[in-house]
């Protein structure tokens, strides 16, 4: 498979997954608000601030908005095209990547992502965001899931699939840690939230954001910090737990290279193998002893290293090609875009 195409598959799915996760996050927290007492603007801001902090886009947010009461945060995360990680931006990027590899997608798969894109640009979407947000986010989630479902039933299990698997699970693992991290930004930190009644609401919201509420109830009774962290980081079975995702990443990496599991042939495999071993043998106690925020931060750092390893091994291939492309493959320069448009259409 062409290196650029592998990279495109990887990002296409990462963006779909990111949009899906954001839609969950916002929807769940909006609903959570309904359970709270009436909040003045300070408290609203206290509610949404941690969510912005956890997505890692707080700088971009504060440069664009003055206050962080609900409406601004929601717009910023949902349909602000200036935020490259908003839902609409993610969908538009996912669709742009899909368009680039259109020739390798089934018609249904393309139509699904294209329809989702057209929906985010429609007047209907505009109306729903303000009048019926649960339907808006529900729509996004359903389309994203349909996209993955169609992909699962129409993409051959070859490299294209493996690179999609990598993108999906790395993004999922990353988002799960970020949702868990929301608690760290709340007043009083993780321990503070744990004891109080609103704390339970928060942990339950985190479970819902990961679509894990039902699965969690199936195996555990009480909702508390340790139980939730244990489930979302270390569960062997739950498909959004960090451990599960890294297991999938490690497996996909070894399918691509043909190297046996437990060994490695490149940096991405070494990083993923190491991390997987730690997750397999790690414990919630160790995570809490280390400090949850610091622990989650390090996980995110290590996901990034796996991502960088993939890029260097399969996309750049510096050891094989003397002349490396200097451009960021995800965003061609303005010059390149201009030249692409210059080709005369006969």
């Amino acid at each position, binding site marked *: *498979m*062409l*290196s*650029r*195409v*592998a990279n495109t598959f990887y990002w296409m799915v990462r963006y779909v997954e990111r949009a899906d996760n954001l839609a969950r996050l916002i929807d769940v927290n909006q609903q959570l608000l309904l359970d709270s007492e009436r909040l003045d603007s300070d408290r609203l801001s206290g509610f949404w601030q941690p969510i912005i902090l956890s997505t890692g886009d707080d700088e971009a947010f504060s440069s664009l908005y003055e206050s962080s009461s609900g409406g601004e945060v929601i717009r910023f995360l949902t349909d602000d*095209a200036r935020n490259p990680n908003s839902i609409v931006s993610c969908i*538009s990027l996912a669709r*742009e990547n899909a*368009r*680039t*590899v*259109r*020739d*390798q997608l089934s*018609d249904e798969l*393309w*139509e699904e992502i*294209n*329809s989702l894109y*057209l929906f985010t*640009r429609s007047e209907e979407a505009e109306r729903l965001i303000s009048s019926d947000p649960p339907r808006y986010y529900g729509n996004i989630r359903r389309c994203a899931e349909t996209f993955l479902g169609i992909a699962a039933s129409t993409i051959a299990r070859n*490299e294209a699939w493996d690179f999609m698997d990598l993108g999906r699970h790395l993004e999922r693992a990353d988002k799960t840690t970020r949702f868990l991290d929301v608690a760290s930004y709340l007043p009083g930190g993780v321990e503070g939230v744990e004891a109080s009644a609103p704390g339970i609401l928060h942990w339950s919201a985190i479970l819902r954001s990961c679509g894990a509420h039902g699965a969690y109830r199936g195996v555990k009774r009480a909702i508390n910090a340790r139980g939730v962290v244990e489930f979302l980081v270390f569960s062997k079975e739950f498909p959004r737990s960090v451990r599960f995702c890294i297991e999938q990443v490690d497996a996909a990496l070894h399918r*691509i290279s043909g190297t046996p599991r437990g060994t490695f042939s490149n940096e991405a495999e070494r990083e993923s193998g190491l991390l997987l071993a730690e997750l397999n043998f790690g414990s919630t106690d160790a995570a809490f002893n280390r400090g949850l925020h610091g622990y989650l931060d390090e996980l995110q750092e290590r996901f990034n290293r796996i991502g960088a390893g993939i890029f260097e091994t*399969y996309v750049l*291939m510096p050891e*094989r*090609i003397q*002349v490396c*492309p200097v*451009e960021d*493959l995800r965003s*061609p*320069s303005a*010059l*390149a*875009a201009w*030249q*692409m*448009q*210059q*080709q*005369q*259409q*006969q």
Partner: protein
Amino acid sequence: MEMFKGYDPDRFYDEMFDADASVRAHCAPLLRKLGQIDQKDFLTRKANSELYFLRQGITFNVYHDDRGTERIFPFDPIPRVLPASEWEHLEAGLTQRIVALNLFLHDIYHDQQILKDEVIPRFYVENAKHYRPEFRGVDVPADIYIHICGSDLIRGADGQFYVLEDNGRCPSGASYLLENRNALKRAFPSIFDEMGVRPVDSYPRDLLNMLHHISPRRDDDPVCVLLTPGCYNSAYFEHCYLAREMGIDIVEGGDLVVMDKIVYMRTTHGLKRVDVIYRRIDDDFIDPVVFRKDSVLGVPGLMNAYRAGNVALANAVGTGVADDKVMYYFVPRMIEYYLGQKPILPNVPTYLASEEEDLKFILGHLPELVVKAANESGGYGMLMGPSASKDEIEKFRELILADPRNYIAQPVVSLSRSPTWCDGAMEGRHIDLRPYIIYGNDVKIVPGGLTRVALNKGSLIVNSSQGGGSKDTWVLRR
């Protein structure tokens, strides 16, 4: 028949109706079928066909629009019908033409016999914008230069087809030909019944067979790729579409590298040799070492590999010398010179601004003529005399005098019209026809072509950038 009630063919040649407003025999069955669809149903189905294009992403961006609104190219569901006899005539004429154009290109890039014999003045070739003297003496794979030609045909008031121009560099639009058929079949399946419409789906196969035919490596299963400028090019949809239909990789310049005059593509498992490149990128941008130095889309060293005969390009480099609008004037002479035949399809009468007599005539008749720049496409660089303002005419007078080699003029041809649904009524609109000719082991022309329609009332400009749409084109078995 309610939709056709009051339809007026006017004084033009109408593709569906005779001068006395009676239906042409080969269109009668279609008209009957259309008559069975009531207007409401027609409009729903038309809307469905538009939705098909939107969902498929067969769209273009509206510039200066922050929300990135996309529009579809307008599609008119009333097909344009050609009887078998007419198509045979066109096929023969187009085949004759592509063979002559290729003989001309071989000659120009080798002995230049046609110039030595003074059939075409040397001056015109050597001053052609797309002439590539660097490639004289280079033998191209299978000795074919124009592998894919999109020739624009028009039908005049006399009912005769004329060639308006040959597009021999990177003609686009074939995907629309195929998708128009798909859209129409989905939206109006009933009108195809028992009509004997010849299918068009062989196009990607013919294209791939041609690419295989020109591979420089004979023994193996050749690796063919489609080279695109990239996803911001307005024809990117078509590039993806054709690559997928042919089952070949679509590559950007950055995906290819040249080492020791061999072209490779960069894959996740290392480098893979490439034999044939169907390039949809202009000569200017294809190799920054030889052509535009600032091109970031091309492949450095590609021309070295090409010259060494290690890779085939379709179309070849330098074909632009043959589709220059001035060179067009000489195509009938090429046919006579190389083939010893009379041209089957005539040219539109053309005046060359660099010939003294012609120039005098052009300048004296600007308000009646169409003036075209020799190397523009897409309907740009054109003066439509009869509808132009005084200022525009004066501007062109100066342009012509400043650079006569770059201009030609033609009388306004009253293009034939076809019934077209326009804002609530069936009206006649002017159309042209672009068939796609593939030259590989033999010449293949997919039965049909892209019928473009000037949607604005009275307009003769069919280009999509200027209010043009398209229709499905039917070639009948009988």
